């Protein structure tokens, strides 16, 4: 609870520190005194800051994040519509970046200083270094415009009827509807924006995995396992990878943060209707309730992810449980 209050206080103070009147940002080029007054009254902007904050907290405990000044809808409604889109993108990115990242990392460690390792090093360095917006535009140019292999943006083709909204994940909802065409359309739309996020994340996971695997690759118990005649696959998966898991899980927390941060850029490039786009538009129009709502939501997600990471340590490493 203290953490939550701290988050709200910092978010509130930061948003208030931005010089500017939200009324001017939202009422266009003819803001009459009456419309400015009505705007200030509607959003309680004339109240002293401590009163505004206490009012905000009072509403927050009732689950009310206020009304967005740009969409004019409750922020909770906006978030509930947008979070599934970002979550679908994030899940796609994390699943694929984990699979490829761990695989590449292990491969690079096992083939240390050989051509494969060097190749993967170049690949991962490029993945980390190349700006995400450039990668997004390049992907669009090649896979959508030049070759026509993938769709250009959005979550579905304009002519596709959206599936019945159950989970908010178009791919899952399309399967629940039993509509494979819609599923395929939704999945194809995930590939480019998700791929951009994957490329960055996979590089990060791969680098960490490689160094974690190298640390244990020549440990005594690994040599013992090999001496027992276990297959290389068993040695890698049961002995090496298990020992490297705490480091990999740690980097997963970072990857999650990167995916959320990257979503702001990727969602804007690919017209992906998620909280990244919402956060961007809120920031540039000084939509204080929306900025606060997004900040609190993302902070909560981070807290939960870190908690899960801590719990996973205990599952992975018995020594953590004992201590």
């Amino acid at each position, binding site marked *: 609870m203290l953490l939550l209050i701290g988050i709200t206080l910092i978010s509130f103070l930061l948003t208030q520190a931005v010089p500017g009147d939200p009324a001017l940002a939202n009422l266009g080029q*003819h803001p*009459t005194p009456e419309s400015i007054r009505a705007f200030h009254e509607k959003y309680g902007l004339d109240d002293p800051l401590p009163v505004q904050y206490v009012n905000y907290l009072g509403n927050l405990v009732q689950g009310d994040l206020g009304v967005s000044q740009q*969409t004019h809808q409750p922020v909770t409604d906006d978030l509930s519509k947008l979070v599934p889109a970002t979550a679908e993108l994030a899940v796609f990115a994390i699943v694929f970046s984990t699979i490829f990242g761990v695989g590449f990392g292990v491969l690079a460690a096992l083939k240390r200083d050989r051509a494969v390792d060097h190749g993967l090093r170049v690949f991962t360095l490029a993945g980390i270094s190349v700006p995400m917006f450039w990668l997004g535009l390049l992907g*669009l*140019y090649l896979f959508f*415009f030049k070759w026509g292999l993938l769709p250009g943006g959005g979550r579905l083709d304009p002519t596709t009827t959206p599936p019945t909204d159950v989970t908010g994940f178009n791919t899952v909802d399309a399967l629940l509807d039993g509509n494979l065409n819609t599923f395929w359309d939704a999945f194809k739309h995930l590939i480019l924006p998700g791929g951009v996020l994957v490329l960055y994340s996979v590089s990060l996971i791969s680098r960490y995995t490689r160094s974690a695997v190298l640390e244990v690759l020549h440990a005594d118990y690994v040599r013992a396992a090999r001496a027992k005649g276990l297959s290389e696959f068993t040695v890698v998966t049961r002995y090496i990878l298990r020992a490297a898991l705490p480091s990999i899980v740690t980097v997963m927390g970072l990857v999650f943060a990167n995916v959320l941060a990257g979503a702001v850029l990727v969602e804007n*490039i690919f*017209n992906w*209707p998620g909280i990244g*786009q919402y956060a961007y538009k809120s920031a540039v129009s000084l939509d204080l309730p929306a900025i606060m709502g997004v900040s609190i939501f993302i902070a909560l997600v981070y807290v939960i992810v870190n908690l899960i990471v801590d719990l996973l340590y205990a599952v992975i490493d018995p020594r953590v449980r004992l201590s």
Partner: protein
Amino acid sequence: MRSTIGKAVGAAAIAGALAVAGCGGGNGDSGSADSGSSAGTSTGASGGAATGTLVVDQSFVDRGVDPQRQFTPTNNMLVHAMYDTLVTFEPGKTDPVAGLAASWRGSDDAKQFTFTLDDSAVFSDGTPVTSADVVFSLDRLVNLKGPGSFLLEGVTVRAPDARTVVVTSKTSNPALLRILATPPTSILNSRVVEANGGSAAKDADRSDRAEAFLQKTSAGSGAYTLEAGQQNQQYTLASNPRYWRDFSGFPKVVVRNMAAPTQLLNVQRGANEIALDLSAQQAGTVAGNDALQVRTDASVNVFDVEANMNESISPTGDENVRRAIRLALDYEGYTRLSGEGAVQAPGVIPSQFLGALTAADAVRTDLDAARAELAKSGKSNIKVELAFPSDATPNGVSFSSIAQKVKSDLQKIGIDVELKGTPAVTFLADYAAGKNQMSVSYWGPDYPDPNDYLVYAPGAPGTSRAADNRYVREMNPQLADLGARAGSTLDDAERGTLFQEFQRGLNEDSPFMPLFQPAQAIVGSRTLSNVVLDPTYTLNIPAVGSN
């Protein structure tokens, strides 16, 4: 509200504005469906009935599709597709033609307009449009106190009978007809809206609850109905089966929020696709594509440099310094910055509108004269801060580039400019408070009439333009009176002449130094008809059809 920095914050381009093939002409103090252009023509497409889905890409500035709560280019375009107004404009034009009103009559003093509704006009639920709906909608616009409320300031509406509407302005208002063609004045089905929490009462800003409903369901008489809407993302429109006028547009329209670079790729791969936010340079890259039609014209947005008239705040308070700056700016260089299609703005009113100055009136760069003016001021080592919104790029033009060029231009006459780029939301706060010494700004029309430019008159209230240049009436009462006379003159020819005189006065000595009208482009599939940027609706969606 149409294009403004406030609205445009963050948007890749303000599509607001748009090339107009020509405007001006009569103020429409009387007209009818017969005497004006026919209603059917205004919405019909040139070919047969269109089939398939029309896809329109734009960088959204989206405040929702409740007609009376929005005033952005994106929402004006969408609202116009779903709702009718008393009068309307044909694609790309600015002379009012019949809309829901089959005919109208203006009083000699332009204070009162009497409209007779078209008997065949029905809402999408089949109920007839009545004068009560008009009164409800226009009252709601005023009482919501939203971004478009100023349009009907000092205006009252009454309905003597079910088919007649009388709109009365406190002052002579020759612009009223054109204002009544703008999307915020759209007519809603009052019965449906009231049943869903709508209110037009005096306290509607607190009591109206219809916005959420109108974001999901349209309640108009327009060519399209809202099938699905995701704010800031995508709107899907379906043709209105009960539409009361001739219609040959697309049965389905999808309007998507897309960044300009993505629009450029989409329009080259799409079948029935239109891109609204390409810069002149981007549009130029597809000029040779046989599958596309490309139009590049001068926008109705006008970029300018603005000075602060208060000498205790800025050295630009000195009239000689202002003259020196005006003469030192390299106007041709600014038009080149925007690309082919851009033109120098001879005055604050864009070239497409009634009362615009001609190129012959444009200020010419004269560095010697500028230095002489500076010498007359008796000031030396002048330093001035130039504020600009660093994150806005209307019509693909970066304010930062303009500001850097102003700095370079003024350096040539010995004025040291310090650049102060801030996010638009921050810029606006200082701009409105009159704190900026100098700024780079722009203005997009709210409605296509010169009266919209009276905000530049000395003594116009600071809040009327979201800016305060400390330009008070006492600085030039004659010019203020001239502006007032121009704004209330009924004869368009005379009005145009007076507005030209008004702008010459502004160019002589005012805080405003018009720079240029940027280039703007629209690119669409060649199979489409009426792909025209519209000064009021951005794109007249119902008019777009198949060749």
